[in-house]
């Protein structure tokens, strides 16, 4: 097989390995060769596991490793613990951290036969929307390397888009899977809170964090989600119910699909007209396929970002209290007089600016006298947001809206104004706040010499993954956006 024929999608890779068109070792080598060639520019990976990947692939070729992902090269966001390599969270704090165990999802992928290529870059501790807040440097968008890939799972999204893996795992606390998926022109799904165990995911905001897949296609997304889900008593929020086979149901179109269009999303400020136009076209496409549009109202949408920037920093300030320079992580080399100085210097040296900013917001909001005014009030607003969705999903099967208000922005464009960066999450945060599910899939490109992808978001009710995947698949079958590739990569032929 020439490089042009090496599959870059998950199900095609699985099929090629299963039918021995390519060995798992050959596929791994070819993918590693792409990484070697392109990742010095893209910078999607923090670390590679070359030897281990080739060993894991050889075991597939020997028939010792089987499963639904046998031989498929997968990239892991570098906030998922692995008992090999480092788990850095793109932070100086954890630059040398070697986790003593595998995250639950890593175990599941391993059992499914996946080949792990390495760990992908992120905004430090998953705090950010551009992957610029990485202690190891920014990841570049494969469609235009002067632009960000989105974040915080920007390394995972860019790795998929650049053909450096056949699927990647990310985490999503306020949009961190869906927004980079949108900006990189790939599919990203945030599962319902409680569907996927977070055991071994380095905690950011525990009531919001979820782990999910990033892939080229909706089918790949369903195949990867199938492996990630399932009960795990080590994460007590993980529901104890068997999940359906998302892939088996995927090609059944939803007859009489009712799509909710929220007036608050349409009225949101700062939507790029090119994004609005592409989403409107997608809505028309759904109508042409027989979907019914339902006008809905999510009246508390406008409070989503504000509630999020209380809840997430409060939980982060608590979760990140564990980095003390004592048990693991960075310790100051400065001479210190006492242990408080050891903590304070180690933390100030180990954390980057955005992480400090969020710890400060959270600490302020939780400090004596402010708890009710901030955290408790935000938790009440969270219930109002959840009730909005409950009412809306009484009238529609899924809600359709943009994923990100804009296509990929330029590197450095928003770093000086944290609040403008936070507003990148306008359409994605309420999904995490309410604990429902959402998927982003490509729905168009901007014009110009370097076209940028535009993402369409479908939000579904809690445990409505089957619905949004099937609805997304309907759209994907009718369009060709998912076959486009960045310049220099082989385009995917129709039904290829």
């Amino acid at each position, binding site marked *: 097989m020439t490089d042009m024929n090496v599959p870059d999608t998950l199900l095609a890779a699985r099929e090629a390995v299963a039918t021995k068109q390519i060995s798992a070792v050959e596929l791994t080598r070819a993918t590693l060769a792409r990484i070697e060639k392109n990742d010095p520019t893209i910078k999607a990976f923090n670390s590679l596991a070359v030897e281990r990947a080739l060993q894991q692939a050889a075991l597939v070729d020997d028939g010792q490793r089987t499963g639904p992902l046998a031989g498929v090269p997968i990239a892991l966001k570098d906030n998922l613990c692995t008992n090999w390599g480092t788990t850095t969270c793109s932070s100086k704090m954890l630059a*040398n951290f070697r986790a*003593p*165990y595998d995250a639950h999802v890593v175990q599941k992928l391993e059992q499914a036969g996946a080949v792990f290529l390495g760990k992908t870059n992120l905004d430090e501790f998953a705090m950010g929307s551009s992957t610029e807040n990485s202690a190891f440097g920014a990841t570049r968008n494969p469609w235009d390397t002067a632009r960000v890939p989105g974040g915080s799972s920007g390394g995972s999204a860019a790795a998929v888009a650049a053909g450096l893996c056949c699927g990647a795992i990310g985490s999503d606390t306020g949009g961190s899977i869906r927004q980079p998926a949108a900006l990189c022109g790939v599919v990203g799904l945030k599962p*319902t*809170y*409680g569907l996927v165990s977070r055991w071994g995911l380095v905690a950011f905001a525990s*009531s919001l964090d979820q782990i999910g897949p990033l892939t080229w296609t909706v089918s790949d997304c369903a195949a990867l989600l199938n492996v990630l889900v399932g009960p795990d*008593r080590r994460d*007590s*929020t993980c*529901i104890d119910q068997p999940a359906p086979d998302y892939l088996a149901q995927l090609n059944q179109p939803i007859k009489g699909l009712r799509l909710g269009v929220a007036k608050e999303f349409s009225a949101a400020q700062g939507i790029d007209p090119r994004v609005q136009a592409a989403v409107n076209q997608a809505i028309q496409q759904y109508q042409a396929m027989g979907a019914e549009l339902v006008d809905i109202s999510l009246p*508390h949408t*406008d*409070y989503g*970002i*504000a*509630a999020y*920037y209380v809840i997430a920093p409060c939980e982060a*300030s608590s979760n990140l*209290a564990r980095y*003390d*320079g*004592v*048990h*693991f992580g*960075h310790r100051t080399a400065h001479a*210190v*007089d*006492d*242990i*408080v100085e*050891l*903590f*304070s210097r180690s*933390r*100030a040296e180990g*954390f980057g600016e955005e992480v*400090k*900013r969020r710890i*400060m*917001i959270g*600490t*302020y909001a939780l*400090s004596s006298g402010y708890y009710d005014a*901030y955290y408790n*009030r*935000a*938790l*009440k*607003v*969270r*219930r109002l947001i*959840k009730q909005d969705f409950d009412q809306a999903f009484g009238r529609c099967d899924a809600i359709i809206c943009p994923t990100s208000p804009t296509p990929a922005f330029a590197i450095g464009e928003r770093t000086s104004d*944290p*609040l403008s960066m*936070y507003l990148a999450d306008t359409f994605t945060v309420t999904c995490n706040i*309410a*604990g*429902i599910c959402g998927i982003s899939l490509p729905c168009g490109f901007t014009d110009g010499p370097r076209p940028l992808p535009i993402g369409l978001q479908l939000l579904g009710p*809690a445990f409505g993954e089957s619905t949004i995947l099937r609805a997304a698949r309907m759209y994907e079958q009718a369009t060709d956006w998912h076959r486009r590739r960045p310049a220099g990569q082989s385009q995917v032929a129709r039904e290829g």
Partner: protein
Amino acid sequence: MNGKQTKITLEQVRHVGQLARLALDEDVLQRLTPQLESILDYIAKLNQLEVDHVEPMAHAVAMTNVLREDVVEPSLALEEVLRNAPATDGPFFKVPKVLGEDDSAG
């Protein structure tokens, strides 16, 4: 919103930095103060909502305590636990003295 609702002083930011155990340099404090003020000012829009009779929602899964049988299970080996520690002494994490000269009364 019209005008600033939230006023944050450098001294408040310094105090919060101490609570958060972050040794922040003066220039970082200077930079953080207006940033925190503008973020908290944005957050203040939550005050526009009437929430007196709304129950707070801690997270999306309706569950309270999750219990298991109180049975001893294997845990990480000591060397695994200590492997990432910046400083150790035998089976212990090593730290500078915890109590200062004036803290002898506890």
